[in-house]
């Protein structure tokens, strides 16, 4: 209608208005694309920064955990093995001073007892570093072993059942899963006040699932993510960094019945681990 008011017969008005329209559209489009792209790049930058921060926190957690483990080892060796060996040395020294046969035999016997204790202690330390059952018999046996010890303490009933574990995962993947379960069980023992822990395993296609149920106070996914982003929650960060090595996922949820807490670890099986 505007065109008609300007000059109904003139083509020039159409050309002018059409050109202005096209110009406005074109410039609008270009400006929109530029601003959209700038926003995307800025968003991407923020995302990368957040990812880098998360990675740094995971790395810090794993370094701190290593340091703690070293300190624990040093303390075990220094406080337990050190004095035992020093005492054994004292008994053996006594042999050099005391020439009485009976006293010598007694001190040798005492030294032997102490050396036996030291051997047992060192064995315990080495088992806590790398459980031999895990290496020799696999994840299922190692977990059964661990749970037997926990149940044996009498405070909590721990059990595990593997439904489909005919073919073992790769040893280093098994070790990482074992460590994750160990950390989760530790957390349950420390914080949840649960009366039982039950671990089940099953597979679905090339997915490998380990589920852990307990009836104490637990975490939901939101709690886990919150703790993971905070400066605390060293154990949880460690779980996250171990899982990122496995490229797996972990889900914390409350059971349908709202009575139990459930933790699901999900992994994708690797080529050699899939059953034919």
């Amino acid at each position, binding site marked *: 209608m505007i065109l008609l008011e300007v000059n109904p017969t003139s083509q*020039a008005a159409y*050309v002018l208005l*059409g050109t202005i329209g*096209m*110009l406005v559209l*074109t410039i609008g*489009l*270009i400006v929109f694309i530029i601003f959209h792209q700038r926003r*995307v790049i800025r968003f*991407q930058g923020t995302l990368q920064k957040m990812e880098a921060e998360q990675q740094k926190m995971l790395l810090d957690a794993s370094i701190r955990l290593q340091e703690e483990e070293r300190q624990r080892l040093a303390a075990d060796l220094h406080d337990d093995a050190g004095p035992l060996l020093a005492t054994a040395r004292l008994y053996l020294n006594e042999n050099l001073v005391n020439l009485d046969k009976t006293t010598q035999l007694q001190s040798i016997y005492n030294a032997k007892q102490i050396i036996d204790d030291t051997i047992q202690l060192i064995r315990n330390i080495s088992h806590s570093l790398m459980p031999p059952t895990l290496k020799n018999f696999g994840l299922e046996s190692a977990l059964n072993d661990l749970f037997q010890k926990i149940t044996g303490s009498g405070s909590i009933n721990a059990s595990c059942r593997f439904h489909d574990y005919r073919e073992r995962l790769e040893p280093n993947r098994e070790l990482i899963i074992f460590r994750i379960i160990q950390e989760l069980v530790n957390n349950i023992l420390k914080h949840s006040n649960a009366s039982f822990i039950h671990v089940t395993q099953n597979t679905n296609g090339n997915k490998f699932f380990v589920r852990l149920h307990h009836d104490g106070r637990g975490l939901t996914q939101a709690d886990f993510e919150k703790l993971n982003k905070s400066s605390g929650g060293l154990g949880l960060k460690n779980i996250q960094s171990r899982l990122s090595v496995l490229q797996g996922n972990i889900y914390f949820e409350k059971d349908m019945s709202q009575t139990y807490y459930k933790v699901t670890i999900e992994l994708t099986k690797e080529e050699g681990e899939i059953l034919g």
Partner: protein
Amino acid sequence: MYFLDFTKRLDSFSIFLESLLVIVTSLYYLYEQMTTVSDKFIYSQSQFWIVIGIFLYLAGTFFLFVLLPNMSDAETMNNWSINWLFNILKNILFFIGFLVKPAPAAYADSVKAR
């Protein structure tokens, strides 16, 4: 006057088709740039300036060339400045395109946005 004589012989329909094809191709390029996530700003690439130069020129002169056969000589002469204006604009954009140095990428490959 040479221009005016020349424009009379222009085939309006083929120009319309050509403009449409190039505009659609330019729009496709801009769409691709929008959906491809890259850490390089779009205006730090010389091809962006070349494409918007062509795009602006063809979009701006679209109506002029399409309606050219229906215009009188006087009208054509009056409106021919539109062609010059957009031609100058296109050349300026080309010039900027030739001057722009590609920014080094922070990471090698750009990822397709999902």
